[in-house]
């Protein structure tokens, strides 16, 4: 699928607990921090580590940068949360929703638009496909377990 020398880019949220706040004009008031388990992220990290270990790809570069998501209402925030709580028994965040509702209630007065900000960095890994004819370090589990005996 990937041409020789092709690049695989793995872009995804970093395993960092997301910060939730109320954004109003240029300011953001913190409300709470989510508590995710990052099971999917760890599993993806293992998959990447494996293809690198087996010599299919090599990591050229890694970047981390901030990313903000904005939603207009608590209902929309709940929809966003469902994505997490539905996976691997992630903890419910009812306490965070209640806190948000209170914070929004207190800040809805006035004409300035108020939104819910979800802040969490993204990780970008750049992996280059190695030439299939010259694998760098394609090591199978069995060969790692049984190293070749030294020449007599």
């Amino acid at each position: 699928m990937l041409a020789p020398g092709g690049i695989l880019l793995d872009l995804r949220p970093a395993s960092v607990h997301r910060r939730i706040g109320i954004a109003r004009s240029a300011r953001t008031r913190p409300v709470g921090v989510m508590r995710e388990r990052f099971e999917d992220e760890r599993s993806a990290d293992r998959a990447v580590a494996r293809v690198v270990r087996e010599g299919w790809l090599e990591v050229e570069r890694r970047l981390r940068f901030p990313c903000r998501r904005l939603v207009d209402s608590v209902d929309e925030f709940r929809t966003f949360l469902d994505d997490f709580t539905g996976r691997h028994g992630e903890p419910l965040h009812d306490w965070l929703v209640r806190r948000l509702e209170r914070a929004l209630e207190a800040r809805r007065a006035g004409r300035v638009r108020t939104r819910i900000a979800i802040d969490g960095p993204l990780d970008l890994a750049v992996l280059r496909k190695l030439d299939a004819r010259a694998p760098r370090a394609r090591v199978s589990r069995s060969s790692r377990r049984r190293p070749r005996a030294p020449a007599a």
Partner: protein
Amino acid sequence: MAYVVDLERREVKALRRVAPWRGKRVIEIGCGDGRLTLRIARLGARVLAIDPDAASIRTARRSLPERLAGRVRYRVMKAQRIAIARESFDLALFSWSL
């Protein structure tokens, strides 16, 4: 739903920093509603964007501007069943999907 992701376009700025996109053949895996697909296509790439969710692909197709139609194709497809053996790509992008 007014759900805005990455208003500052930091994702696409990072993607531009790490790879050349103009004229490249790109497969985007997990394109969702095509938010990032359009940004990549605007960098000059030719993109095959896949997602297993048919509703997301319908949304993506609806929001595809005519001027990018020649550079973007959407397909309902799971990453595990990429049925494009005859095609090869310069870049593969896992969009929040690995």
